[in-house]
């Protein structure tokens, strides 16, 4: 209790909560501390002030809880299927938040000023709304605020002077930076808590004492878990009996099979990319509405079918642990999706940007089509992946059994869908709205499919590790790739002459240069000009920052090495002490 007196009020409350004592004892300690404070310092107003602050904090927390989405459904899914399946739905909810935020700021800062200033879009007279626009995104939508082309480059005179160019640029830049920061923070905290390099899953102690999922509330699921645990324990007992030593020829055979599968899968990925390039090159001249859907159709078909081939290869290969198997599958799928996205972006940046007049809107439409067709294929994939597997597994081939929910494949599809939205924000500011609808419907679809068609996973464990890997994947190839595409577009490519907020400029980034030149007239904002010229535009600054960061990383690395040694020594000390004092 004495050490609690020295802490600040907030730390004290946290320390009281973290005590492993019964409720009565905690209340007693709390009473002693608060009353003692009252007697010792006689700061009655201080006590009331801190208490009202705490109450304020609690009511904010309460209010935030009312906004929580889907709590009941999450509880139901967690209760029946466990935490690893629940992590997919939590990931989906998290991505939905990104899109809601993006939609709100895009709509608020870019679209609403334009709509207030000029409520009627200037559509040419012979274009009217037909139903096909919802699928292709062209036609009527081309002239609305859906795409880059619908925005003007003027300074809107109204209550205040609203510079559309700056607004467009800064909204998107700030959103991307905030996304990046949020991703880095969640990745770092996930690494800190979850990523343990030792493979503890095959450890009996872990299986017995740490792996039971207390949140499962369904009797059948509990029975199934008990069965699985029993099977796993028996397996690990028998593994101890026969640790197989492979002969050299067997090792060579396994190596050959691995090499073959990797070559095949990389070849498939490259082949898909190349075929999409040629398809695009041959077809772009066909601007008729329905035929523009061909390329997204082929892309989504490849995304659906090729991972099934990868799973097939996986069955023929022999892996030393389940973890390695899952990692190999994930890496191959990521390679496939990255190669498809890379080819698409290359085509858009190099060919479309040269050929067409309002090319940003064209790219925006292409992305819109990709998003819509991807959604349709996700629904189809749910149907084939889960419903048909269930039917086949229960009626036709009972040996296969009821399918499990493949968390890895579904999360990768979510990551791919989100990357499309991130690339598309620059070209089509209202694309997040479509994405919000898509994720919303997808949540309910997957939930129904899960409860009707799937059984809980047989092998438990490593859910936290997989979650860390997925967040890391979301950040590293996918978000960074989307950010580089948008940055390349803003920096190197010439905006189109006839449409959009940046017409007439050499590149998008020069908007900032123009603004800084304007600001130099105003004496009160000289500090902004100074920051721009000496910090953002100077190379020495970045060089120095990089050097400092490298030095800090090196220091932290050495500290970690030292700590590892210390842990080894302490562990040895525990053993020594127990030997001396049994």
């Amino acid at each position, binding site marked *: 209790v004495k050490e609690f007196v020295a802490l600040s009020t907030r730390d004290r*409350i946290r320390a*009281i*909560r*973290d*005590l*492993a004592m*019964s*409720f009565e004892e*905690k*209340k007693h300690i*709390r009473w002693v501390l608060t009353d003692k404070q009252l007697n010792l310092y006689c700061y009655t107003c201080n006590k009331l002030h801190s*208490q009202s602050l*705490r*109450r304020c904090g*609690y009511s904010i927390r*309460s209010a935030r*809880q*009312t906004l929580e989405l889907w709590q009941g459904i*999450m*509880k139901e899914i*967690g209760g029946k299927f466990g*935490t690893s399946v629940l992590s997919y739905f939590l990931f989906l909810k998290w991505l939905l938040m990104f899109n809601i935020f993006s939609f709100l700021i895009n709509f608020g800062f870019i679209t609403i000023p334009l709509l207030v200033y000029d409520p009627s879009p200037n559509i040419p007279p012979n274009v009217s709304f037909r139903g096909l626009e919802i699928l292709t995104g062209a036609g009527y939508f081309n002239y609305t605020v859906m795409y880059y082309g619908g925005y003007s480059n003027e300074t809107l005179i109204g209550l205040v002077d609203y510079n559309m160019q700056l607004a467009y640029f800064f909204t998107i830049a700030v959103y991307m930076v905030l996304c990046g920061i949020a991703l880095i923070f969640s990745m770092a905290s996930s690494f800190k808590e*979850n*990523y*343990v390099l*030792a493979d*503890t899953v095959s*450890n*009996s*102690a*872990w299986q*017995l*004492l*740490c*792996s*039971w999922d*207390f*949140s499962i*509330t*369904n*009797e059948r699921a*509990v*029975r199934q878990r*008990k069965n699985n*645990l*029993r099977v796993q*324990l*028996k397996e*690990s*007992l028998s593994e101890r009996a026969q640790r197989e030593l492979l002969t050299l020829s067997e090792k060579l055979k396994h190596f050959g099979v691995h090499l073959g599968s990797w070559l095949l899968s990389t070849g498939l990925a490259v082949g898909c990319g190349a075929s999409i390039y040629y398809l695009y090159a041959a077809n772009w001249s066909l601007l008729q509405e329905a035929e523009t859907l061909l390329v997204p159709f082929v892309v989504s078909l490849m995304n659906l079918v090729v991972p099934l081939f990868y799973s097939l290869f996986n069955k023929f290969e022999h892996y030393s642990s389940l973890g390695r198997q899952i990692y190999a599958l994930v890496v191959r799928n990521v390679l496939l999706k990255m190669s498809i996205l890379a080819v698409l972006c290359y085509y858009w940046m190099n060919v479309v940007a040269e050929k067409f007049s309002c090319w940003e809107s064209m790219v925006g439409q292409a992305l819109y089509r990709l998003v819509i067709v991807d959604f349709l294929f996700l629904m189809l994939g749910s149907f084939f992946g889960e419903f048909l597997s269930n039917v086949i597994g229960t009626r036709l081939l009972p040996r296969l059994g009821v399918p499990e929910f493949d968390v890895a494949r579904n999360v990768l599809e979510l990551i791919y869908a989100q990357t499309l939205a991130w690339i598309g924000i620059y070209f089509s500011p209202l694309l997040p709205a479509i994405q919000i609808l898509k994720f919303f419907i997808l949540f309910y679809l997957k939930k129904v499919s899960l409860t009707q068609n799937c059984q809980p996973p047989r092998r438990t*464990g490593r*859910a*936290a*590790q997989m979650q860390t890997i997925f967040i890391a994947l979301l950040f590293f190839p996918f978000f960074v790739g989307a950010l580089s595409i948008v940055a390349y577009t803003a920096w190197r490519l010439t905006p189109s002459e006839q449409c959009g907020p940046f017409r007439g400029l050499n590149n998008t980034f020069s908007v900032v240069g123009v603004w800084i030149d304007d600001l130099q007239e105003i004496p009160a904002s000289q500090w902004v000009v100074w920051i721009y010229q000496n910090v953002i535009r100077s190379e020495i600054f970045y060089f120095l920052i990089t050097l400092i960061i490298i030095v800090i990383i090196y220091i932290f690395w050495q500290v970690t090495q030292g700590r590892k040694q210390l842990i080894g020594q302490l*562990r040895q000390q525990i*053993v020594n*002490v*127990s*030997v001396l004092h*049994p």
Partner: protein
Amino acid sequence: MGNKQTIFTAQQLDAYQDCTYFTRKEILRLFDRYRDLAPQLVPLDYTNHPDVKLPYELIGSMPELKDNPFRQRIAEVFSEDGEGNMTLDDFLDMFSVLSEMAPRDLKASYAFKIYDFNNDDFICKSDLEKTLNRLTRNELTEDEVRMVCEKVIDEADLDNDGRLSLEDFQHMIVRAPDFLSTFHIRI
């Protein structure tokens, strides 16, 4: 919405919010769940600290707990009398520790108490055998049970005294990142 409840005084609610990880709304909702188990036993007015204990049978029949193989141990660990009969304070404490906001060390120390069937502050072989039987419906043979328990002690016992102390257990938990999400009951 607002401060219009008459079940607790403001000080009581403050004490609950400070000592558990729940917000005001959750505490009131949990009180409703507690009362639903036995409406005739639980009064609607807690301002004069009534001494009401719900017997274990009612607690163990809650949908969140009724299929959990460790429900009896959970109730015993969190109840004041050690028999599983819980007051409202014990009830709130239990779900607070099992909620997702409780830190890992707190959960680890309570998980240790749950697995320690004979309450001697060590998880010995008999405790492990009982845990294993709860988790596998008595379907392993005697030999297999013995081998698994020996393997567990081999792997987790750091100070080589043949049984697991709280520090051994916590050391194992640190290397099991899923523990935070599996030792979690949603209510």
